[in-house]
């Protein structure tokens, strides 16, 4: 296929790159500020945060840390925000906070701070800081309510809400937020960190506009969108035309125990593509629903990974993509449904469904099924010194094998890349002892190439009345093998009581444990690639197209 023509821009290539570098540096700086000054432990090295700059209409032009899951969200947040808050209501010095999933969001714990940036009296850009707060209120500490059946049980719902103006903090509004979350002091630290990050960005943007002139900067931003679009078109053009169908299954919806399908029909037509999720299941009763923005983020991730490593998550990259979600379905449930787990569970399922749909375009490009779940276990309890603590831990598993190599042990794949918490930090900060952390040997699926092994980690509870929440997948539907490879061992979380009794935890549960109880996490192994026993040489045929 012919390469698409370079977009016509009114800014020269040198100035364009200089401005693009300045915008990226600014967004990177925002992430540094949040990571270093915020309070929530998740923002620690785990880095569960993102930063972005958008144009005046909310289209993404630069991002700081590149977390696949957040990119889709950041591409839509300001656009949706502007539908609720017209620009006429914005003033210099404002910082608006929001977390409603239906406003370009994902779930309540991911709180966005939005600062409009003005030049010559008009809004010219927005600085956005997204951070995962350790708690946003709701029924249980940590705000992962496994048994939630509606959105209001999941915590404080923040519509666009002005927490800062040019005069400083809006104290009443800030107090309203802090009164409804656990750990008010910590949360205030998070709010201030996000505010500080957007303020730094505003300063740099003012400098940039002053240096180059508004016209040039705006032309550069338009060109950045055009480049993102051009690269996405090139990526799509590389995919053979056709219609591809794929599906994957959630273990359950937390309320029942029936697996739930995520289905996609992908139509590639030249340099455009449609991802139609209409046949995906109806909205779930439990918190595995998610938003169309998350579905878009997952689609973008798969396309970039398989076909366009140079594709940038800018506003323009979505222009050649049509992403269809059916209102009332799992991926477009409306504002009243619970969504907290959908953010990192269903997003991964969407990615898996799209990967599997595209398998016919070249299985060599794919990896077998991996730990496409957060493997989340959340502990809430009081330390010996009386301090209330919430420990949120994600557990990676074995990577799926590929045509030319075995899967790696214990990693995060696809939509998330959050780090683990070292045992020495866990024991110092929470009333928990880590009894062991080992590879879960033999858990990787057999195949010509083996899936990676999962993790075996044990947590002993050292306090009375510890609240434990599980939120993980791949317990029932295991990571799939590819091309005849076998699936990996499924995820399993077991509680071994102080009395020696064992019980397996469901994938989405809130339970209370006592001193001496042990939570045994065995994360899933990766799927194998190719039928076990087949020789490498038997499979060395060229890439199928």
């Amino acid at each position, binding site marked *: 296929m012919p390469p698409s023509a370079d977009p016509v821009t009114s800014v020269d290539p040198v100035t364009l790159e200089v401005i693009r570098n300045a915008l990226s540096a600014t967004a990177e700086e925002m992430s540094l500020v949040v990571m270093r000054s915020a309070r929530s432990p998740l923002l620690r090295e785990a880095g569960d945060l993102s930063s972005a700059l958008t144009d005046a209409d909310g289209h993404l032009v630069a991002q700081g840390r590149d977390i696949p899951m957040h990119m889709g969200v950041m591409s839509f947040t300001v656009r949706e925000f502007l539908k609720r808050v017209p620009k006429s209501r914005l003033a210099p010095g404002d910082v608006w906070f929001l977390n409603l999933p239906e406003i370009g969001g994902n779930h309540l714990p991911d709180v966005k701070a939005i600062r409009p940036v003005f030049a010559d009296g008009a809004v010219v850009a927005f600085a956005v800081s997204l951070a995962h707060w350790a708690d946003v209120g709701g029924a249980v500490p940590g705000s992962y309510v496994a048994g939630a059946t509606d959105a209001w049980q999941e915590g404080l719902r923040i519509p666009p809400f002005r927490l800062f103006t040019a005069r400083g903090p809006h104290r009443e509004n800030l107090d309203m937020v802090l009164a409804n979350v656990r750990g008010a002091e910590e949360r205030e630290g998070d709010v201030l960190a996000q505010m500080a990050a957007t303020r730094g960005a505003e300063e740099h943007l003012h400098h940039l506009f002053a240096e180059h002139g508004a016209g040039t900067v705006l032309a550069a931003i338009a060109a950045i969108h055009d480049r993102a679009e051009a690269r996405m078109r090139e990526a799509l053009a590389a995919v053979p035309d056709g219609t591809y169908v794929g599906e994957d299954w959630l273990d359950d919806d937390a309320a029942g125990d029936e697996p739930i399908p995520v289905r996609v029909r992908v139509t590639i037509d030249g340099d455009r593509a449609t991802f139609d999720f209409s046949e995906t299941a109806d909205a779930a009763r439990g918190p595995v629903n998610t938003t169309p923005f998350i579905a878009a983020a997952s689609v973008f991730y798969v396309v970039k*990974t398989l076909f366009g490593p140079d594709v940038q998550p800018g506003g323009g990259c979505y222009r050649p993509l049509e992403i269809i979600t059916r209102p009332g379905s799992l991926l477009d449930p409306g504002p009243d449904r619970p969504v907290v787990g959908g953010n990192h569970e269903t997003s991964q399922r969407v990615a898996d469904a799209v990967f599997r749909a595209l398998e016919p375009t070249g299985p060599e490009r794919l990896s077998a099924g991996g730990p496409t779940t957060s493997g989340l276990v959340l502990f809430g309890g009081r330390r010996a010194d009386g301090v209330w603590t919430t420990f949120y831990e994600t557990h990676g598993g074995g990577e799926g094998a590929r045509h030319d190599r075995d899967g790696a*042990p214990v990693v995060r794949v696809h939509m998330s890349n959050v780090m683990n918490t070292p045992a*020495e930090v866990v024991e110092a900060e929470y009333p928990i002892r880590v009894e062991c*952390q080992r590879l879960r040997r033999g858990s990787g699926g057999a195949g010509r190439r083996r899936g990676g092994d999962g993790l075996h980690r044990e947590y002993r509870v050292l306090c009375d009345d510890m609240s434990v929440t599980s939120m993980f997948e791949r317990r029932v539907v295991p990571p799939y093998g590819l091309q005849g490879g076998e699936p990996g061992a499924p995820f399993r979380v077991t509680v071994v009581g102080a009395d020696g009794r064992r019980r397996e935890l469901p994938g989405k549960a809130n339970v209370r444990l006592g001193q001496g109880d042990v939570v045994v996490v065995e994360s899933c192994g990766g799927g194998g690639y190719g039928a076990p026993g087949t020789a490498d040489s038997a499979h060395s045929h060229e890439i199928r197209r």
Partner: protein
Amino acid sequence: MSGGWRVGVDVGGTFTDVIAVNRTRRDTRVAKVPSRSDDRVAGLLAALRAVDLAWPDVDDLIHGTTLVTNAIVEDDLAEVALISTRGFSDTLAIGRQNRRHLYRLDLPPKAVPQVPAERRFEVRERLDHEGQVLEPMDPRTVDEALRRIEESGAAAVAVSLLHSYTNPAHEEALGGRLRERFPFVALSSRVSPEAREYERTATTALSAGLMPLAASYLDRIEAARPADSRLHLFHSAGGMASPEALRELPLGLAASGPAAGVAAAGRIARDLDVEHAISFDMGGTTTDVCLIFGGEAQISSDRTLGGRPLRQPMVAVESIGAGGGSIARLDHGALVVGPESAGADPGPACYARGGSRPTVSDANLVLGYMAPDRIIGGDIRVDPAAARTAIAPLASAMGMSVEAAALGVVRVANSTMLRALRRVTVERGVDGRQCTLLAFGGAGPMHAVELARAFSIAKVVVPAHSSVFSALGCVSARMSYAQQRTLRMAVDEWDAQRLERAREDLRSRLAAPLAAAGCGEGEMAVEEVAAIRYRGQSYAIEIPDAALDDPARLTRDFLDRHRALYGFATGEPWELVSIRLRVSAPSTSGELRPAPVESGGSPSARTPSSSVVSGGSPSARTPSSPVVSGGSSSARTPSSPVASGGSPAAMTPSSSVASGGSPPARTLPCTFEAGATAATPRYDRAALVPGRALAGPAIVEDAWSTVVVPPGATLVPDEAGHLHIATGTGT
């Protein structure tokens, strides 16, 4: 002790820089010779010969080396056996569970563990996070582990037990047993006494894997060293250490080279009384940037190399993949520079060694910044026509002249490097615009002024000896040892005794090698840095000169720093996460303050020059290549050795123009603005007159580097040989 020379030798990948200082004879010599990776010891001796010295002449040799850096990057490590607490021997394989490449499924997501499962062993023992023994060490499991390690044939042993940073007793006991049988043993509580088991274990295993290599290298050097000559090595945290100390902790050499350059920058910043500076070292493939805060290079403990954590105090150099070899290309309407690089081979198109794609160096040549008759690295004569040919396609695609395209390449390269400047300053809460840019390395002085302007920096300094800067860092180093230790102490549970014990323990441990080198307890300087954060906060803020005896003052200092960094501070409780101590010997042997020198002073050491080098000294010779050693000096009377070497007055002009005036050596076309190529004077750096200002446009050059002074900028050389450039913008 015979000769009275103090010599700094920095062995880099391509070149070895050497600077020799003799205080009694008031003589300084510099040279640059090709490095010898085949025989490093021979290379070291050759470097001495290049300054007309033999080792017996040398009292102190301070040596920076890439030995360890290369071994890590190339994975040239000895086989290590690892002992862990029962239940934790897979920690290296688990790592931090994150993947390296977000969108690349084809690449392995993380490094293969340095120690494979069959050489990872466990012993029964367990501590808690306060160092209390939950389970004593079981001697039978120790016996078993030792037996199996012997069977494994491992060359070195690493020990990393859970929470050993709070209580090393179990590791020490194991270490005692191991040393009876194995020559190379590394204990995590000594290598990196900090929390986080993966980073500590990986760091310890890495250091263990380097011990045999370091020992054999040091053995060979020691065999060549005369008995009354002292040898020191330059370590990653910016000081020198004894060979004995580095045999125990070879990982301390991981950033030896960059640390020496940054240490020299810190030295210059102190000498010039510059409060905040950014060191800017631009080379062929990478650019290193470091913040010099209050005259001290910033130190960090969380760097990685070759995908492996190196948790050691190291100079906080931010390295970006942009340099003279970075390739420029058009990509969807934008001119992009790097990260792809032509490297050293084939190198930029203008090297005429097979490279054809346009690079930053080609742009510099097209613009006339780099002289058309320049010789790179002693043997590569640049080819201006090849540079034009390489840039031309970019130019026509952009509809510009070749010069305009070249200007664009330089501008974009600078905007990439700007991101590194932004990062090092933001991390420390410093307003970059208040900094002075200290430029050195091959290409640093070429880009410095325009880069500074883009960052609104008003002052650039190209220091004396900028082309052998790392060697200068070596020769001006103090002996020092540094270590960081996790403490975890909340302000409302302050335990002054525990803190004092930890400080005393670190102090005595760090002082021991200094005392062994003959430094008196009373002479040692102790610097203490506290890492403090709000409870629950992710990162700690470093408080230099921490008032560890005065929690109230520490509170104030923390709040002030937090406000400076983030613009806010709250009254929440804070905790002391860790402390870092540096114990230093006084810099008796290396007083390197620049001193005033009468202008037009007599010739002394020479800097190599591209054209002709005339030696004003008895041992003068005309070298056949620009790899030149300094001759010994004629008598002069500067009050300090570097002043003599560093002062321009001390340099013999390479042109026939006598010192005392500074007409340009020649005039060649340069382009600073598209369509405005104009004849521009080029000055020989050695011929500049202290105090006499030079208005841009102008070029100042010596054999190893080119200083570009664009229109609107003004350069003033000082008497120590530093070139001060007012950029004409910024504060």
